């Protein structure tokens, strides 16, 4: 153990020195365009804990899923691995980098695990094969059930080491599911693992959003008859009504600093965008138009809000400056543009457009130029929301007639895959901030 502790600190130092080795080579905002040939070896037992193949298998599967989803890697086929893959040696000098060069791998992940006294220790290294340098090293100690969490956390670390920006794999996704027959709030991992039901309102729960500063969610529920805005602490389960004005209290979204909530109220008999304090009091009204104004989404700086309005006829995306209240129109194409989501890293706004009765996901620059269609074909893709690093989008998709499910894809529309199981009619996903 002493060896590991000592090497851990050396590794951490090396990590700080070397973490930017690949950084210049990868464009964060354009995953999938450039890939690194990466070899992911299986975790080997280390120390006295003995072999627990199930741990190694689960870890491998979870980490591989994240790495593949990132679109940054071209995974070296494990069947072609040579003898070095079977050796525990985690020190730079113990690794036969030439074997990995022969296979065309430019990066290498090696690791070991041990389980002693109910504690799981996983130690991991990411190497640059070409320069034979350690890029990042990590040791994780947790419960035996923390395997997935450790794999996701290391995946985030790998992305940080290679791109300068952490991955989003250890965060959470909130969404609405009708699995029980009622629309309730759920929480799951980014890969769809372990959905947990958070509400039991037996009514209609809609539109969750995470607080950026606390382990807290807001959402709308008809529990007491009217669509009111609720707040719920995730760990204590404590719940309260935050806004219960007559009419709609919907589409609540925390500001980037967590101090205000933008939402739609219709207390004056028409839907308008308002800002609330976190105590539920109205700070200011942002729109004033007889048309429908819904679906606010904050700019990363918190000075503007994108929203949906039919003030020029059909539903389109507009942007309001929260200080001057000046409104500008963002989308002009298509007849039905809705549910805007501003990339938290800035640059683009995602939304859903209905053409010929089918919703697909588009993005557009904040200045209204360079509109791109990300999804195609049948299946309604709605409610896009960005990952906290701006690399991925989640959305609902009813492809295949099994009701809606939650899907994930890269910001350029590639790598789309379903993450929530069929049969729940799952919708309204929201991505947590750093967990």
């Amino acid at each position, binding site marked *: 153990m002493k060896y590991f502790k000592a090497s851990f600190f050396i590794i951490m130092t090396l990590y700080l020195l070397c973490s930017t080795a690949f950084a210049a080579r990868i464009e964060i905002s354009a995953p999938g365009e450039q890939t690194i040939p990466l070899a992911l070896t299986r975790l080997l037992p280390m120390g006295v804990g003995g072999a627990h193949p199930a741990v190694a298998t689960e870890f491998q599967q979870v980490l591989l899923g994240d790495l593949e989803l990132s679109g940054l890697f071209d995974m070296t086929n494990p069947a072609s691995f040579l003898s070095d893959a079977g050796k525990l040696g985690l020190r730079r000098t113990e690794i036969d980098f030439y074997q990995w060069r022969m296979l065309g791998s430019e990066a290498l992940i090696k690791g070991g695990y041990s389980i002693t006294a109910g504690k799981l220790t996983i130690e991991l290294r990411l190497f640059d094969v070409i320069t034979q340098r350690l890029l990042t090293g990590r040791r994780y100690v947790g419960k035996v059930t923390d395997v997935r969490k450790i794999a996701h956390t290391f995946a985030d670390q790998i992305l940080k080491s290679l791109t300068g920006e952490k991955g989003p794999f250890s965060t959470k996704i909130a969404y609405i599911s009708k699995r029980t027959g009622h629309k309730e709030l759920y929480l799951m991992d980014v890969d769809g693992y372990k959905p947990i039901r958070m509400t039991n309102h037996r009514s209609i729960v809609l*539109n969750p959003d995470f607080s950026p500063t606390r382990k807290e969610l807001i959402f709308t529920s008809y529990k007491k008859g009217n*669509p009111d805005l609720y707040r719920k602490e995730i760990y204590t389960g404590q719940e309260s009504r935050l806004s219960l004005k007559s009419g709609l209290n919907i589409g609540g979204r925390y500001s980037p600093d967590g101090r205000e909530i933008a939402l739609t109220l219709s207390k004056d008999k*028409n839907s308008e965008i308002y800002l609330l304090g976190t105590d539920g009091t109205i700070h200011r009204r942002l729109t004033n138009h007889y048309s429908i104004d*819904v679906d606010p989404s904050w700019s990363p700086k918190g000075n503007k809000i994108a929203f*949906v309005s039919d003030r020029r006829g059909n539903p389109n995306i507009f942007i309001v400056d929260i200080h001057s209240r000046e409104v500008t129109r963002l989308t002009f194409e298509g007849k039905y543009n*809705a549910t805007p989501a501003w990339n938290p890293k800035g640059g683009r706004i995602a939304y859903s457009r209905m053409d010929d*009765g089918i919703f697909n996901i588009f993005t557009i620059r904040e200045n209204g130029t360079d509109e791109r269609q990300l999804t195609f074909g049948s299946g309604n893709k709605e409610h896009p929301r960005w990952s906290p690093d701006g690399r991925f989008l989640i959305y609902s998709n009813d492809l295949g007639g099994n009701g809606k499910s939650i899907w994930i894809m890269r910001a350029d529309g590639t790598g789309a895959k379903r993450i929530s199981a069929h049969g729940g009619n799952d919708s309204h996903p929201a991505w947590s901030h750093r967990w």
Partner: protein
Amino acid sequence: MLKSTIARLAVMLFVLTLLAAGCAKKPATEEAAVTEQSTQMEQQQPAGVEEQAVTDTGYDAAAVARKAERDAAKGLEPIHFDFDQYVLTETAKSTLVNNAGLLRAAPAVKILIEGHCDERGSDEYNLALGEKRALATKNYLVSLGVVVERMSTISYGEEMPIDPAHNKAAWTKNRRANFKVKR
């Protein structure tokens, strides 16, 4: 003798007169008594009927009101809208004229107007649209003389379709405002 005979005659005449008077008087009093009795009965009889009639009218009013309430609860027809519209169609207006009649006849009835949308469109936009539909319906009923305080509105957007199918027929049915009588 003659004197005594005259005297007897006079006495007899007196007695006869008395008798005659007595005979004539008796039936007269009896008649009066009968008349009195019958008058009393006649006076009592209509009073009793009237009392019952009052109770009858009271019972009827409650029943009539209850019937009007039942009619309103059963008879308030939903109205339908065009896609992405909350403007009332002519058909919707004539349905509302009928609904307003039912509501005016049952002034104690309070109603909840629910605005609904079809599944197309975004959920949040449809919540706002459903509310516009409910409010347009309420305002028209107000213009037809239904007291505004009797009506409240709620929007369910596309959350509560009456036909869950994904086709035009279902969408037409689901774009609606319907009425619930509040208890």
